[in-house]
């Protein structure tokens, strides 16, 4: 049969002799200086002698998986020693045995992981994955063209925005926001009928041309060239875009709620450099380092003590709700519940068929 029958075994580790790491990550997800280099990574290299090739290879969980799945199934190198992927995808990889178990002894700083993320259903005990950053999916808008801003997903369906609305190709974010808008608790028990109602709404907005752009992280290009005026986006990206292009966009988590998620480090089964990666994870779990990254990317850091470290850098940073959300902010954020294999296939197909215009 095709795909994932026998579980592949991990590659032999060469970390001791080969001081390199290849890291695949999303765009706008690490600190960059004006010269285009990554300060925290450079510091890591200085500290450990391990050189990191950082590639913004992930645009969308699905397309990334599509690119590497065959290699994973064969237990072969995918061209990366570490990748940061979203909870549900990490769950799939773990189910299929495509990841390597992490040696917590090599990651003493793991003790800094915030308690709420220490045990997750897709990876009990965090034996295979460690969070990198988390964030919200909410709404962003072009403040020059739309000065009034947005407080709900329904406002995106305003006819005056026809064709200028973007949503994420990440099913859990787009559908999550719509379901929340329709009053569904996405973390709780819901089923086909709730999902179906949301899909119908989404389908309608795509079919009538209201929604034109459905993308992964590439949505930022559409915001910049103004094909998209308002969109469902990921929280931290907007801050970074504003930094680069002038304070052009607003961002809000809708009143009825946004999604909350994490992207996690995993070591693909074919990587021979797990130990190096463990050192990298350990490094980023230093609260000071975490704070430095957070200050740049504006995503939620999973590292306890980072807030304190941030306070030292800039008090305003520590109060940024996007990075260090307080309970009232978190009350609006919901985690999309874990789907089983059949659900994943079915809901994925439903969502995908809308992207394909069927």
């Amino acid at each position, binding site marked *: *049969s*095709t*795909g*994932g*029958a026998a579980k592949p075994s991990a590659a032999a580790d060469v970390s001791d002799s080969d001081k390199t790491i290849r890291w695949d990550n999303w765009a706008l997800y690490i600190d960059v200086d004006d010269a285009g280099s990554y300060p925290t990574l450079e510091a890591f290299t200085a500290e450990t002698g391990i050189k990191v090739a950082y590639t913004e290879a992930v645009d969308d969980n*699905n*397309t990334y*998986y*599509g*690119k590497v*799945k065959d290699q994973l199934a064969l237990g072969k190198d995918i061209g990366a020693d570490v990748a940061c992927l979203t909870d549900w995808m990490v769950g*799939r990889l773990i*189910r*299929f045995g495509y990841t390597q178990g992490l040696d917590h002894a090599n990651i003493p700083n793991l003790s800094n992981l915030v308690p709420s993320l220490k045990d997750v259903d897709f990876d009990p005990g965090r034996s295979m994955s460690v969070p990198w950053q988390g964030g919200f999916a909410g709404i962003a808008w072009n403040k020059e063209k739309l000065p009034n801003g947005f407080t709900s997903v329904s406002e995106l369906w305003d006819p005056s925005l*026809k*064709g*200028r609305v973007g949503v994420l*190709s990440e099913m859990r974010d787009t559908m999550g926001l719509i379901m929340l808008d329709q009053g569904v608790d996405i973390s709780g028990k819901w089923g086909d009928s709730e999902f179906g109602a949301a899909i119908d709404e989404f389908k309608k907005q*795509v*079919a009538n*041309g209201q*929604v*034109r*752009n*459905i*993308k992964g992280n*590439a949505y930022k290009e559409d915001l910049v*060239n*103004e*094909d998209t005026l308002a969109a469902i986006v990921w929280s931290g990206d907007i801050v970074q875009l504003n930094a680069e292009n002038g304070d052009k966009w607003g961002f809000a988590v809708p009143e009825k709620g946004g999604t909350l998620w994490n992207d996690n480090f995993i070591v693909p089964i074919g990587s021979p450099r797990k130990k190096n990666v463990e050192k990298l994870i350990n490094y980023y779990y230093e609260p000071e380092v975490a704070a430095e990254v957070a200050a740049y990317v504006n995503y939620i850091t999973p590292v306890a003590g980072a807030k304190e470290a941030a306070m030292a850098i800039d008090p305003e940073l520590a109060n940024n709700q996007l990075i260090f959300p307080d309970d009232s902010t978190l009350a609006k954020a919901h985690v999309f519940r874990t789907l089983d*294999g059949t659900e*994943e*296939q079915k809901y*994925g*197909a439903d969502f*995908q*068929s*809308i*992207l*394909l*215009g*069927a």
Partner: protein
Amino acid sequence: MAFAAFATTTAQADPAPRRRSPVALLLLLPGILYLVLFFLTPLVSLLITSFQAPAEFGDIGQYTYAFNWQNYVDVVTDYWPHIVRSFAFALAATVLALLFSYPLAYFIGVTARRWPLLQSLMLVLVIAPFFISFLLRTLAWKQLLSDESFVVTSLKAVSLLAPDAHLTGTPIAVIFGLTYNFIPFMTLPLYTTLERLDLRYLEAASDLYAHPFDVFRKVTIPLSMPGIVAGTLLTFIPAAGDYVNASRDFLGGPDSQMIGNVIEANFLVLLNYPAAAALSIILMSVILVIVGIYVKRAGTEELL
């Protein structure tokens, strides 16, 4: 030049009497074996995959061998609009490319004969796009046609485009992209036939009372038929299977997805290999049938 490939090889005057010889086998063997190995067997395994069924208690992307012809029914029911759309887009792009390329090829191949330097210069410009990645060129169009671009704002200014209309993400942009990307494939075979067009036929026609328009319709067009056939095939076939132009990251939107995008999504995102395979087989069969009919009707069977 490379575009000799696009010239149809019309029957040559009596080549040497063909011999039977073991040498022929030796010459054929490596290439044929190669194609069997890396073209034919993949096709066969694609065919086998297209009949697979989801594994019992299997996770996403897990299938077992079966003879599940229902796959074909399913993909046709789900995706018939994409199949139709693909061929419609490919057809539109082919026609547009032909309309654009014919005058261009005629100019280079016939009008410019008197100025060989101009001729070769224009030819270079036609093949030039081959050397710059088509992805980059398409992305350039995506920017050039974006909502706030010069093109769109001017079109709106002169009311050729409704104020709330846009180009990227629409079928128009996809067809435009396909047309643009395949113009060289259309122009070159046209050029190679038109370049060899014997002008004496045109003179004979005008000597026989044919108005310039009749000369074109009755003589020039039929005589350039081999080029038209080669060009349209080289445009139509890849255009029908293309998924880059229609990709949402390039020029397409949800309402302009083609069958290539569906195959890609099923293969890489939904991990529905049987559906992807079934769609591939359908796409290929339909193309073969269309090509067969077309070539037969155009009377240029000597294509390979």
